[in-house]
């Protein structure tokens, strides 16, 4: 049992990276645009197909596949922005209507993908090669190492961009007071566009990373969406440190359960942990910003 510990830690780290990417996307979109992006899973699936197409028709070099996934994700994010955010953002009852609109996009998009590519699953080429890294007794497979490294890199870049740049100040200002942001000259629509594209790119990266172990399929977005939502929720919508912490918690739970109890109990223990967290802190771990938004 103890012998499995390093393996658990490694897979927990990989899961942390992927869930973190997804949850932060959802969290940032909620806090800056006030929209729950239920089409995040759709972005995820589309990015998987984008990467697959690139691998089929362009080249199956790791950089190309990753780049194609990220790019498709960003384009899909922009598409969601154009369909769900742009026409609705100044209309009454925006929160519920945008939620439903993104759900509709997700329904429509998943079915369209199935129609275009068929229900058969596709697999992506190995992006990070096959040579595992050996540290003493611990063997870390290349895809896990790559997942942790690339997502840490991208997350770091995004966090840096959020805290240092003018655009980042823009987004944080918009998170907290949209009207006030307009009053200092911040264009709501342009900022929203960039937020959606960036979070879409994050989902695209997560998609390529997760497809190293799973497959690309039209409905592939559902599980990551539910998990990303739940991690974002558990971390407190709008709080980036909270989301990272929650991603870690959920990742550890999943890795530990899968190793020691069995794969079919993963969801149950995860929900148990999340319900526990939410009952203690109804607004999630870092759920402070949420109040300020209202």
């Amino acid at each position, binding site marked *: 049992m103890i012998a499995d510990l390093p393996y658990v830690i490694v897979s927990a780290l990989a899961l942390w990276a992927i869930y973190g990417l997804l949850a932060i996307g959802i969290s940032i979109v909620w806090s800056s645009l006030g929209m729950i992006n239920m089409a995040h899973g759709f972005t995820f699936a589309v990015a998987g197909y984008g990467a697959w197409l690139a691998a089929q028709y362009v080249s199956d070099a790791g950089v190309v596949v990753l780049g194609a996934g990220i790019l498709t994700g960003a384009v899909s994010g922009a598409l969601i922005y154009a369909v769900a955010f742009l026409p609705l953002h*100044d209309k009454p009852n925006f929160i519920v209507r945008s939620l439903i609109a993104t759900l509709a996009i997700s329904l429509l998009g998943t079915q369209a993908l199935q129609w275009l590519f068929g229900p058969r699953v596709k697999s992506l080429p190995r992006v990070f090669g096959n040579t595992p890294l050996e540290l003493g007794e611990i063997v870390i497979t290349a895809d896990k190492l790559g997942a942790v490294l690339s997502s840490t890199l991208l997350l770091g870049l995004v966090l840096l961009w959020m805290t240092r740049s003018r655009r980042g100040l823009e987004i944080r200002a918009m*998170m907290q007071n949209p009207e006030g942001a307009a009053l200092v*000259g911040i*264009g709501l629509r342009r900022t929203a566009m960039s937020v959606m594209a960036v979070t879409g790119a994050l989902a695209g990266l997560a998609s390529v990373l997760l497809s190293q172990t799973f497959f690309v399929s039209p409905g592939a977005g559902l599980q990551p969406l539910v998990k990303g939502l739940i991690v974002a929720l558990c971390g407190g919508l709008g709080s980036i440190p909270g989301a990272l912490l929650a991603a870690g918690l959920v990742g550890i739970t999943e890795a530990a359960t899968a190793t020691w109890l069995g794969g079919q109990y993963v969801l149950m223990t995860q929900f148990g942990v999340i319900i526990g967290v939410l009952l203690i802190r109804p607004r999630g771990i870092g759920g402070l910003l949420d109040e300020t938004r209202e």
Partner: protein
Amino acid sequence: MTTPVLDIRGLSAGYGPLRVLHDLDLTVHAGERIGLVGLNGHGKSTLFRAVAGLTDWQSGSVLLNGVEVGGTRSQGPGRHTHEIVRRGLALMPQGDAIFPGLTVRQHLDAGAYTRRAWRERDRRCRDILDIFPPLEKLLDVAVGKLSGGERRMVSLGRGLMADATVLLVDEPSLGLAPKIGKTVMDALMRIDLESGAMIIAEQNLSLLEGRVTRLLGMHAGRLKGGGMTALPGRHVTGVEL
């Protein structure tokens, strides 16, 4: 004659079926400091919000530094606000449009969002601290933790950071202790307007009297007082608002 910094012609505005402003005319020249007095619900804030493009709908023309920024906007409130702000308008709304999670310094930086102001934001920041000295010590404190008076100063300071020619200040003394309200107002009066102009909406007449270049009254969505110059002036000599 120079172009007025703000020229409002026949402005009507409202929310949904409700019409709040009725065919309103106002011309503001550089260097003017105008007081706008009126009771609650008579359209002071709506006038400011209409100039900033935040009302539900509006018609008529608003010229800011000679550029048309008004017109009918039924596509939705707030859609053009950032463009108007970049043309040189600063609105300090009622009840402080602040970002509770950002620090005072970040606030002031956010105020200098326009491209030119961003480059010289440190110099401007020092100017603001001269106007509102109490903020000096609070620069790295999150604004959500400040008191009402300090928040008001941050809100006003943020408005001043931008490169604005027209400053619209909505009820600077609202909800503050009388003494603090007076301090805030004194600070506003000290600001050197140079080529800009300032309109202060206020319910408390005594805070404005004798300290502004012009005093306008607002009643039921219409301007009274200085706005009446358009009418033959002979019979209104005895009337005060």
